[in-house]
């Protein structure tokens, strides 16, 4: 496993990476980063793996469903018992 060898340019770029992968960076700065990436394989790895990291986390997000026991206890605690409707019957 190798470590990143940093030129001053690599370090300068680091602060903009998040916005770069979100596509939220000004065109000029994007162009500067892309120019640097042509000659810097290490930074390419950092950017690609940073993007992949965010993607993997987005894919791994569990569904926003409340387990039913938790929902019942929540409604009870809020004194909303009368609004606990029976779970929908499978058709």
């Amino acid at each position: 496993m190798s470590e990143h060898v940093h030129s001053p340019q690599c370090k300068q770029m680091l602060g903009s990476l998040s916005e770069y992968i979100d596509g939220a960076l000004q065109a000029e700065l994007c162009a500067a980063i892309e120019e640097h990436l042509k000659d810097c394989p290490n930074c390419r790895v950092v950017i690609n793996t940073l993007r992949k990291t965010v993607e993997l986390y987005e894919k791994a997000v569990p569904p926003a469903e409340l387990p039913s026991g938790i929902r019942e206890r929540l409604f009870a605690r809020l004194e909303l018992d009368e609004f606990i409707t029976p779970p929908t019957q499978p058709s």
Partner: protein
Amino acid sequence: METLAINNNTQTGLLVALKTGSREAFARLVDETSGQIYRTALQMLGSEQDAEDVLQNTYIKALRALPGFEGRSSLTTWLYRIAVNEALMLLRQRQPAALSLDETDPFDPEAESAGMELSDFCCLPEGELLTSESRRFMNQAIQSLPPTLRAVFVMRDLEGLSIQETAEALNISESNVKIRLLRARLHLRQKLAGYFGEKTQEARLR
């Protein structure tokens, strides 16, 4: 990524009903938002019991605070705000030292770039990247983030709030959100690169 359950139009009507103290409207608010709020609490705390406590406290506080809610942010952002503050408070009680590392310092590329892992795990097949074991590792990695970075990462990248909404929910500036998000992502990238790098090596040695 799913969008927030309550859009602006339904929010206006719901808010009026909530302000008049309608219990039915409150039950509806709970049903439309509690899945996201629970998931947020779970990602912040890593424990189902703690997440359930935070969930309940969030809606109890929301119920009390509703009369003073001015609608400057959306209802959902407001609930996220209460929930994340509850979670941070719990973490502060548990591990006071963890929050003293405050992440408001300016971004330091020197420190952030030290010892970066360079294994390129991008090309591993998706099936290998998202096994149940690696999902567990990813969750542990979130828990290893300092809580204030974790809060930004959870809201922005997992819950899909915008930079502006995240800033409103945490009561910090947008530039602060961006810095914390970058730090959180770099920290997680480093963890994942280490983890998948080892996996790749193990596979080669087999």
